[in-house]
């Protein structure tokens, strides 16, 4: 196992699920309850120093028991190392703790995840839709949302109807 993953495992034995390396990238899977503690550890631990939050995104697996997956990408500028942290979120309780208290850059990234996938971030200072309109119905990056939309567009009078 990668020494970084080993370190996370020894620090959080009950919240650590899995770690793997593929394509030269390290992925660590953890339980969502401890996301803030793990991120704080990643940021402050002198051996890790993951100070740069690169990205937050989410994936939808409709077949799985815990449907959603929130994926964090961190980069350590002093150590020149990347890490990917994953946490599963079930559909019935679609929430995860926000990490805006650690990285202010997480604000927009978490808002986008909420906008696109409908995952709510607890204790986020301003959790609103960001790319879509406030009255948009549904979360477009979920797999059950059709790419061509739900027909809302056809109700706009200013768009000419193409099919009749």
């Amino acid at each position: 196992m990668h020494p970084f993953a080993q370190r996370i495992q020894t620090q959080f034995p009950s919240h650590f699920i899995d770690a793997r390396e593929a394509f030269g990238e390290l992925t660590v899977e953890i339980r969502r309850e401890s996301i803030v503690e793990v991120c704080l550890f990643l940021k402050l631990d002198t051996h890790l120093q993951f100070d740069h939050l690169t990205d937050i995104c989410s994936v939808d697996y409709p077949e799985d028991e815990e449907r959603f997956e929130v994926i964090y990408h961190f980069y350590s500028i002093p150590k020149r190392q990347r890490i990917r942290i994953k946490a599963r979120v079930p559909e019935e309780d679609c929430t995860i703790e926000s990490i805006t208290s650690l990285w202010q850059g997480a604000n927009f990234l978490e808002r986008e995840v909420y906008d696109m996938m409908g995952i709510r971030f607890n204790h986020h200072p301003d959790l609103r839709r960001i790319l879509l309109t406030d009255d948009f119905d549904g979360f477009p990056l979920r797999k059950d949302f059709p790419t061509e939309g739900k027909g809302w567009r056809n109700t706009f009078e200013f768009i000419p109807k193409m099919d009749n």
Partner: protein
Amino acid sequence: MDREDHRSGNSSNEFGLIYHPESAEEMESKGPRTEDLLLNMGPQHPSTHGVLRIVLDLDGERIVKATPHLGYLHRGVEKLSEGKTYNQIITLTDRLDYVCAMTNNYAYVRAVEKLHGLKIPERGEYVRTIVAEMQRIAGHLFWLGTQALDIGAMTVFFYTFREREVLLDIFEALCGARLTYSFYRIGGVQNDLTPEMIQRLRKFIDEFPSKLDEYDTLLENNRIWLSRTKGIALISAEDAVNFGLTGPPLRGSGVNYDVRKAEPYAVYDKVQWDVPLGKNGDTYDRYWVRMREMRESAKIIRQCLNQLPDGPVLVDQPGVTYPKRDKIMVDMESLIHHFKMAYEGIKPPKGEVYCATEAPKGELGFYIMSDGSNKPYRLKIRAPSYVHLGAFDHMARGYMISDIVTIFGTYDVVMGECDR
């Protein structure tokens, strides 16, 4: 007559502004009247370079809070990608950062190649590096011209667009397009540089440093330029990292992080070049960093042209690239292979990759989750413009309303990439 009316009581002038005449005694008893002003800027505003709306909370002329409202150019590229084959997505990436489409293509194909474990022919890597650096120069020239235009130095705009035109002409000769190139292919590039193009490029690179000196004479000692950029939109190195800034906004604050040095790709480790770093983290330092970067890019291109090896620019691997055009009509295997490529496309192995590329605006990352089929299961674009706008409020607070255009321009934001 009008003057009489104003004196007698409240009335509005032809601009609809209401006068509240108050006597000196009244002013003294109540103290000066203060009121926060909410001002909407955009989505149609010439300096936003696209469709961005910012709601400004103002105290007099000071910005108390700036709230960006995004999404006016959202086209759902990530959702569309889930229904397209890997080759088809290249054209979508053109429409992200539409002034630097080459880098977008590059960032995307690199992610797919990482997933597929492809090795690019050496000449292909050199051509890729040359074109990426040409695009960086073109992108920075575009930024310099428009930022100076926004601040009020109009001449620079004409100068930078003159040079950008030369690069766009070479791009046009290279791939037939001036903005949406789709030049990079999974496994290499579409066309090779011809000797004629190399000659044109050499001429441009030889002249370019003197052109940069020309811009310096327009801006470096320009008192208006200096007073409008120095000390404006300050961000400390710590905050810049905390907000996830990358590219010139991060390096302007003195943080040494450039993807080309940190995780060298293409031939960046085979050429000599430096990463320019700012000190103060203000608009001027970010301008300085970009100016230096253009000189470094010219250095990289010159070295690449000198080292340019012979050979193919695209891998010839069934299942990854299309067969040669002249083979399709005479060779049965090539015909089948061509059909399968067009019908099924590339099928990378199952897995996930995050691949970062240094775009002119910052770190452009593509996260691809593959389920082994010919379409990505999930594709996430880490757009630098989007992340940079997250720091907009922090960087705008406390500055004057006239600075908002400078602050916006200093990120070099393109809304197509921001809204995706």
